[in-house]
């Protein structure tokens, strides 16, 4: 799992950018809000001032009425006159102040009010009424009553003329004030809304995606930790299992070697002991090889050696190595081509053999009856070799198939106990297949019915690669009773320096009706081969004059069409591969039963 550093960096950058933008935006809105608020507050002040100014004028007008009350209450005319003039003087000052204010104050927002006041000449009219009041007060000719009537008359006139105007103006001012308060309220709500929208936008744009990334990363981390723990547990289980797998054969080997030291052991017991020691030693060796392979794969240290290889040789070799197993279990074992295959492919021969041998070996291991078929086809469009390994074995459950290719998990512990194995083979094979430019998968499987694996590898052919016109040889191991084999008319040369072997093989093969010739050395064999056209040669490898390999070369120079089988006491896989590479078409191991010899000869003569 890779933590996305770029993603974290980008997210941090986004956060910083959006944070800066948000901050600037909020500052701008706040500044604008403050500005407007300030404006509105100022307006409120102006409202209040205007209202006060205009109301003052209204009060002044009303005060004119009060003057008339002074006229009635003050008995002394002289005092009255003096009081009246004093009051009028005060009022006049106020009117002048109002007028000056009207002239100086030209607030654009209240221009209309200003114009009304100016147009209606409120100040001038007020002054006019006060001058009248003043002249009345100064007059020596008017009586108290007359003064009173005149003052009342002025007051009424001023009240009806100016009062209403001023009331209107005050009403307008109040309305304006209320409107601006509402505006302030609306602005506040807009500000709150904008901040909310900004928060939502930031949330959606930044935080939501950030949280989903964090959640996703958290899931990945959790998943990774679970996988690591699972892998660690699997490795622990694997090591425990491997330890058991190693100890089990070692116990057998050590135990039976101790047993073999006993002189009183019966012959069959010794034979059994030696066989068990050998089998377990081979098993241990293959286990160690598997562990080494998986170790290399895990540490990416597998080296591939790509070169042009002969495809048929891979199949021939695998068939030759495994057909004995098939025959022991009486399973139909065959290699077939679905279409024409390239003669050579460019791949790692050793690894391809390893994969196919593992797949076919598994198929044979898990099949007790029926068939194991290996079918190959070449897909020219993709330059791919496809190999299907089909068996009629025990099959694989869905649960097992999930774990089948994992190196440290076994498909089924119970199956492994019954059939043996470490469970590494398929993991190794899949990794190697991928290294060869392909893959290994389960194509189909059914419990109790069988399984088909499909292997694909890059064929690496070129334009000059020859596609074989006729299919490669198909290899089949049909179940044949050796007693029914009829080789009448076939000429077979048996080459072995030990007459005991010659006699033995002669006795075996004579029963089939074949004409047998014997040679007791390499040179004798080559001479007979040159003189007679045989149908098949059985050639021992270890001979005193020239060995089997040298004899083979000489024979093939003369005629390379005749099948020559190696007949040797060496049964190791390496020896089989060596004989195959040398050019032997088959490898039979001594000691050999009549059945194996007859069937081996029969199959090669059938081709």
């Amino acid at each position, binding site marked *: 799992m890779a933590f996305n550093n770029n993603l974290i960096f980008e997210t941090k950058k986004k956060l910083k950018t959006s944070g800066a933008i948000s901050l600037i935006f909020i500052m701008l809105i706040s500044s604008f809000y403050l500005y407007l608020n300030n404006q509105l507050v100022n307006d409120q002040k102006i409202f209040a001032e205007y209202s006060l100014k205009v109301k003052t004028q209204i009060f002044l007008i009303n005060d004119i009425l009060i003057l008339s009350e002074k006229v009635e209450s003050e008995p002394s005319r002289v005092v009255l006159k003096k009081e009246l003039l004093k009051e009028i003087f005060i009022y006049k000052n106020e009117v002048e102040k109002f007028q000056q204010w009207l002239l100086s104050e030209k607030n654009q927002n209240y221009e209309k009010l200003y114009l009304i006041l100016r147009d209606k000449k409120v100040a001038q009219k007020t002054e006019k009424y006060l001058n009248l009041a003043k002249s009345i007060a100064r007059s020596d000719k008017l009586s108290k009553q007359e003064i009173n009537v005149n003052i009342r008359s002025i007051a009424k006139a001023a009240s009806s003329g100016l009062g209403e105007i001023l009331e209107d103006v005050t009403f307008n001012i109040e309305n304006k004030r209320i409107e601006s308060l509402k505006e302030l309220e609306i602005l506040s709500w807009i500000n709150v809304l904008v901040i909310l929208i900004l928060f939502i936008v930031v949330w959606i744009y930044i935080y939501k995606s950030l949280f989903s990334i964090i959640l996703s990363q958290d899931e990945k981390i959790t998943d990774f930790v679970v996988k690591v723990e699972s892998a660690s547990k699997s490795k622990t289980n694997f090591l425990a299992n491997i330890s058991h797998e190693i100890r089990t054969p070692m116990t057998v080997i050590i135990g039976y070697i101790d047993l073999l030291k006993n002189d009183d052991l019966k*012959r069959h017991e010794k*034979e059994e002991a030696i066989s068990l020691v050998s089998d377990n030693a081979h098993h241990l060796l293959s286990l160690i090889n598997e562990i080494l392979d998986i170790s290399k794969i895990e540490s990416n240290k597998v080296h591939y050696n790509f070169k042009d290889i002969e495809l048929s040789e891979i199949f021939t070799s695998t068939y030759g190595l495994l057909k004995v197993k098939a025959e022991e279990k009486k399973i139909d074992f065959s290699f077939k081509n679905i279409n024409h295959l390239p003669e050579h492919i460019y791949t790692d021969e050793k690894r391809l053999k390893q994969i196919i041998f593992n797949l076919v070996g598994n198929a044979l291991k898990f099949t007790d009856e029926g068939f194991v078929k290996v079918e190959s086809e070449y897909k020219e469009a993709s330059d791919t070799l496809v190999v299907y390994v089909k068996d009629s074995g025990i099959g694989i459950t869905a649960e097992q198939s999930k774990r089948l290719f994992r190196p440290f998990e076994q498909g089924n512990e119970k199956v492994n106990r019954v059939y043996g194995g470490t469970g590494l083979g398929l993991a190794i094979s899949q990794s190697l297949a991928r290294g060869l430019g392909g893959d290994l998968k389960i194509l189909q499987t059914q419990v109790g019915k069988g399984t088909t694996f499909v292997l694909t590898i890059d064929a690496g052919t070129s334009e000059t690669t020859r596609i074989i016109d006729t299919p490669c040889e198909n290899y089949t191991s049909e179940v044949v009773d050796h007693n029914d084999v009829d080789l009448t008319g076939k000429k077979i040369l048996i080459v072995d320096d*030990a007459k005991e072997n010659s*006699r*033995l093989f002669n*006795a075996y093969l004579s029963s089939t009706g074949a004409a047998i010739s014997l040679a007791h050395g390499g040179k004798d064999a080559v001479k007979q081969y040159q003189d007679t056209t045989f149908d098949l040669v059985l050639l021992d490898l270890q001979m005193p004059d020239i060995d089997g390999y040298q004899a083979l070369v000489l024979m093939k120079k003369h005629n390379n069409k005749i099948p020559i089988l190696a007949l040797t006491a060496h049964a190791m896989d390496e020896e089989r591969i060596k004989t195959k590479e040398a050019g032997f078409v088959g490898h039979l191991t001594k*000691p050999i039963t009549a059945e194996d010899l007859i069937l081996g000869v029969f199959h090669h003569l059938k081709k």
Partner: protein
Amino acid sequence: MKIIDELIEKEKPNKGLEIFCEEFAKDRIEELSELLLCVNNADLTSAAKIVHKWKGFSAPYGFNYLEAMSKEIEVLAKQNNLDEIKVIAEKIEYYLNEKRRIISNGI
């Protein structure tokens, strides 16, 4: 040696090879001398070659004990265990002589 006698009684050659058994026993006795010579000279490589051959063809001729002993000697030769090989060689000698006697007498 009683065990060897019991084993001999149970051994039978494959059909068609009975006529070769006496000659087989004779040839093996001759080769046994060669084997003992190799062992005495500590030439275990040559000794292994001899028994390797025996291992390959003894059973069909009804010389199962010889086959089993050959396998043992091959293993001992790899381990350089001369003493054990000599012990087994003595047993083989008894065995082959007894086999030849029985076959000759038509028993």
